[in-house]
């Protein structure tokens, strides 16, 4: 999934994620916050299908029966009310 990452335009992911700059997030490089509920597997799958950075998490940590879904990605980090992605470049 990581081929052609140099040519990848992250703006396509703005449909599913909003970028929170470092000044507003706990991360020194900012963070990408999933715009939808973490239960919304339809949007989670759509987002992952457009992402070049998907990396499957341990099977026990997956929450969608379809593999290619952001909630199954090792690069998502659960938050109190959703998840953030730190696979996408800031």
């Amino acid at each position, binding site marked *: 999934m990581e081929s052609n990452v140099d040519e990848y335009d992250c703006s396509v992911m703005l449909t599913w994620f909003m970028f929170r700059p470092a000044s507003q997030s*706990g991360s020194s490089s900012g963070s990408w916050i999933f715009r939808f509920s973490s*239960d919304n*597997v339809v949007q989670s799958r759509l987002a992952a299908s457009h992402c070049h950075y998907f*990396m499957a*998490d*341990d*099977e*026990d*940590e*997956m*929450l*969608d*029966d379809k593999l290619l879904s952001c909630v199954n990605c*090792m*690069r*998502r*980090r*659960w*938050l*109190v009310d959703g998840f953030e992605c730190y696979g996408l470049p800031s």
Partner: protein
Amino acid sequence: MTTTWLICIDDTDDIGTKGTGEIAEEIMYLIMSKSHLNSVNETENNIAAWVTRHQLFVHPDIPYTSHNSAMCFELQSALSLSQIKQICTEHLLAESASVADPGLAIVDKLALTHDDVVNLIAFGSEAKREVKTKDQAYQLAKDVNVDLSEHGGTGQGVIGAIAGIGLRLSGNDGRVKGKISVGLAENTDYISLSVNQIIACSGLDGVIDIEGVKRDGEDIIVLSGKVKAVFVHDQFLLLVYQSLDNQTGKKHWCNALKQQLKKY
């Protein structure tokens, strides 16, 4: 003479490294193997159960990597605490991610008093909804005689490790690590088995539906994909839900979807 050990680890992994559940399972098998080698009486050893995954609180003040969960297992062994701990420690040091903060909790389950169990369960429950500290974890460990130790980094994993012991003791928390073997071949879409057949071939204690009702032995379950179990009522149970067959119009029981397993 054997001892019933409860062992829990937390905060051992990082992105792209071996998962905490896999490390826990490896430790379980290592202890079983060493128990066998050191045993005078083989029947006194090697009674192992499943590794369970326990979800903990996710909060900005908690430095987890991508999720916050502890992995716990129970087994009987004639090995001493120091022997068990040596096996665990060596494997944690060898397999944990370099940036991880591993914690390890070991306790003789049957030596716990009722009050100890109550206190451990309370800590585990609180660790699912509030931020706990290392000091609190170590104080509890001292109070209830849990051997709690850290093995690198900040050692923050001790919090999850002792919380996982409490949640396992509650008998009502967590999912079983890995998929349950029910004879479903890789190239087979599904298999239909009765509850009794599932119990016989998997070693699970039974089948429960998402409403919390235990299914009868003759109920037929359609099994497909990754078959997963949960830890409820002190039992390892296959979780199922009722699905409508669009072709026949009939309802049948199916193994749970990942979204349904999420709350365990």
